[in-house]
């Protein structure tokens, strides 16, 4: 290993049943640098980190760390910690009911000669640590009294005090405001000067450019490249993450001239959600397909949830078919004629121990209400209809949905919403984890439904999909709508430019 390098990961392979999470992934970390780890959903960022810190085992590859003999295989986070690798997660892993000082010293509290805890020494040392990192706080106060920002810093302080040479920060800024982000960056720079290496996992482009030295990009579990920040313009970074070269761009312009009616179906003004979405407007006409695009974490799903009423919106109004709709919960939206396919099908979509049939008719049944059960013959008819239409591979309609593959589960949930015959349907990542053939089917289905008068919102990480189906694209970045593209602007190049923020630059067309 070179002198200035503290960690190398080479040829890392990790497979889960049915999916190859990491394929020849690699990472090089130098001493005293802040290194960004970036990639879209499924890129393998969190898997790589879990492999490094011992949460997961790995099948191929080697990890070498300075000071550790041979191939370093951590079997647990504790072992990783003993080697000097510590992780601070988005959900701060500290005890809110204990004081700052205690959190710093849990499991290793200083003891008096009688073997009981020496509180005075502990508090004093805690103060020293926090002062050393220039964080002002009362170390005897309970952690829960402090903001997430401070809690994170306490977690970092604990890691550093326990001798971490490599500090992994997993999406630390998601819940911080600008001031707090600045303070965190100050701390990170300070640690860098003390030769701590920081691996910064984030999806906020601006922050990467503000504080990092190098960037490693992963895509589909593989290593794409490692770049010094100074040599990597935003556009190139976005392309590396999404997998497109500027020169290779085929402008998949929307050739079909879509007839969009003038009838407004949903009109939302000033909708915002505390902490995730800044106020935005949204209008969709009958038969229109609008896409939400942007990098992961830009707020696409959150925006969709706000429109659907799944999350409480703090501001704004929404009109459905001209009438004011104040949806306090999804039930109200469904009654009005909305549907919502969530992006996390496991947590928010699939009802595991119910059969495929039950999962498909569930939303329709909820819409009809408890007292109007759908007769079994009709249930069978509906279930069969969508099993056939979406080509859901299942042993029978009574099979438990948990036994289906991920893609088929997704199709069943899609069928669930189609069965309610909605006027407005939001599809959040409907093609994630689905084979190519079915992806195309679903895109065709979207166009067909739009042609029949349904209004749809289509969210996908794959821009080409959206270009093929949408008549308009909302571009999001960092929780805000930064652009609206339609007509001739619906090209890969244009979209990526707006995402990257080089909207002012006019890039060369191939």
């Amino acid at each position, binding site marked *: 290993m070179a002198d200035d390098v503290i960690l190398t990961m080479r040829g890392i392979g990790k497979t889960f049943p049915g999916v190859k999470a990491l394929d020849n992934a690699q990472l090089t970390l130098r001493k005293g640098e802040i290194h960004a780890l970036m990639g879209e959903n499924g890129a393998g960022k969190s898997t790589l980190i879990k492999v490094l810190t011992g949460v997961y085992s790995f099948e191929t590859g080697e990890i070498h760390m300075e000071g550790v003999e041979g191939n370093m295989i951590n079997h647990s986070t504790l072992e990783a910690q003993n080697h000097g690798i510590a992780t601070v997660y988005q959900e701060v892993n500290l005890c809110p009911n*204990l004081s700052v000082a205690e959190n710093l010293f849990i499991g290793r509290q200083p003891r008096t000669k009688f073997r009981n805890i020496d509180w005075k020494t502990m508090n004093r040392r805690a103060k020293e640590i926090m002062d050393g990192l220039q964080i002002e706080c009362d170390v005897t106060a309970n952690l829960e009294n402090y903001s997430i920002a401070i809690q994170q810093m306490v977690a970092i302080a604990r890691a550093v005090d326990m001798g971490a040479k490599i500090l992994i920060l997993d999406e630390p800024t998601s819940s911080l405001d600008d001031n707090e982000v600045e303070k965190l960056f100050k701390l990170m720079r300070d640690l860098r000067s003390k030769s701590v290496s920081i691996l910064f996992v984030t999806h906020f482009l601006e922050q990467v450019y503000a504080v990092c030295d190098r960037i490693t990009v992963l895509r589909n579990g593989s290593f794409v490249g490692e770049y010094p920040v100074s040599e990597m313009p935003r556009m190139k970074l976005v392309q590396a993450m999404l997998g497109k070269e500027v020169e290779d761009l085929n402008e998949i312009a929307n050739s079909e001239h879509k007839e969009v009616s003038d009838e407004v179906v949903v009109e939302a003004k000033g909708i915002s959600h505390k902490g995730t979405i800044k106020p935005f407007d949204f209008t969709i006409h009958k038969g229109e397909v609008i896409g939400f695009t942007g990098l992961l974490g830009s707020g696409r799903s959150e925006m969709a949830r706000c429109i659907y009423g799944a999350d409480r919106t703090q501001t704004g109004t929404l009109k459905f078919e001209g009438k004011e709709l104040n949806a306090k919960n999804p039930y109200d939206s469904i009654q009005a004629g909305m549907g919502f396919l969530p992006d996390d099908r496991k947590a928010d979509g699939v009802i595991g121990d119910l059969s495929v049939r039950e999962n498909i008719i569930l939303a329709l049944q909820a819409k009809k209400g408890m007292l109007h059960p759908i007769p079994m013959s009709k249930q069978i008819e509906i279930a069969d209809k969508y099993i056939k239409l979406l080509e859901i591979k299942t042993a029978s309609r009574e099979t438990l949905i948990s036994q289906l593959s991920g893609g088929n589960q997704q199709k069943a949930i899609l069928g669930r919403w189609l069965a309610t015959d909605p006027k407005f349907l939001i599809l959040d990542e409907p093609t994630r984890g689905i084979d190519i053939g079915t992806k195309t089917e679903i895109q065709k289905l979207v166009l067909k439904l739009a042609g029949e008068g349904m209004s749809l919102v289509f969210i996908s990480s794959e821009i080409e999909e959206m270009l093929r189906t949408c008549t308009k694209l909302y571009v999001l970045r960092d929780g805000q709508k930064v652009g609206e593209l339609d007509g001739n602007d619906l090209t890969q190049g244009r979209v990526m430019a707006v995402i990257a923020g080089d909207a002012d630059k006019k890039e060369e067309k191939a």
Partner: protein
Amino acid sequence: MKKKKVFNGNNILLLITLVLFIGMYTIGCIVYADKGFTHLQTFLNILITNAALIVVASGMTCVMLTGGIDISVGSLIAMDCMFLAVSMSRWHWGAIPAILVVLLIGIVFGCVQGYLVGYLNIQPFIVSMAGMFFGRGMTAVISTDQLSITQDANRLFYTWANAKIPLPAFLGYTNKKGKVIAPFLRPTVIIALIVLVLVAFMLKKSRFGRSLYAVGGNETASKMMGLNVRRTKLLAYVLSSFLCSIAGILYCLNTMAGSVQQALGFEMDAIASAVIGGTLLTGGVGNVFGSFVGVLINGTIVTIVNSNGKLLSSWANIATAALLCFFIILQSIFAAIKDRSK
């Protein structure tokens, strides 16, 4: 950076408890002064009657700190009492061996429950409910008759039970015949208070005690910080059952009998004392002094109900349950406020 002022519900709860106790006791003194409520002995009697409850409440606090619960305490006490009664009255055991066996029973009982909760991750309620029914049944297995421990059965035990520790006479009162009655305590109270102090010390000053708080506060974090969560939970239940056995001995010294009906509803009183004393059901917050005040409140309610000759003793039960309900709802509201302010 200044810390955010968060509505500190936990301190408020403890304050409410103290105020409640002082308020109740004062009312009792005012209303039932003629029944002797103002005598120091009334307060001392609360301590004497509830010596066992003080110990159990301390153990319950420890278990609840980890986010668990132990409703087997009442039946464990009944089982211990029955065993003491049978072993001393029928099998003619000495007091010391009988007591040692009872303590051992407590440790074994706690190990089984602790293993099921800590290592097999079974819900504490189910485990301790099974423990409760096991204990009740075992009491009947040992003997279905009601047995009392007489002086003949075991002289030593009998002496302990009737021992009095007199306090200075000036703290006493003069009765109707003009005789000065000095107040007294029993050794059981001293033992209970010593246990209380020891547990408090353990919770504050030992790594194990702090790990109870940590596990209850955030179990995932505790694991990631290197604490042995499973062993901590196991030991919490062992401690609870062990203290319960001590309480069983104190209870037996009080009642000098063993019967199947003993200590019915004891677990409710223990939980109520802990909750009223500021222990959060969700874990991570609580202290034994608060639970001690909770026991005092419980005792005050019973004394007030007894002083009023017209009220049935059931009212004490209902009052305690209502108070528990009130505090549980209060805790839930505070938790909701805290969530919303985040």
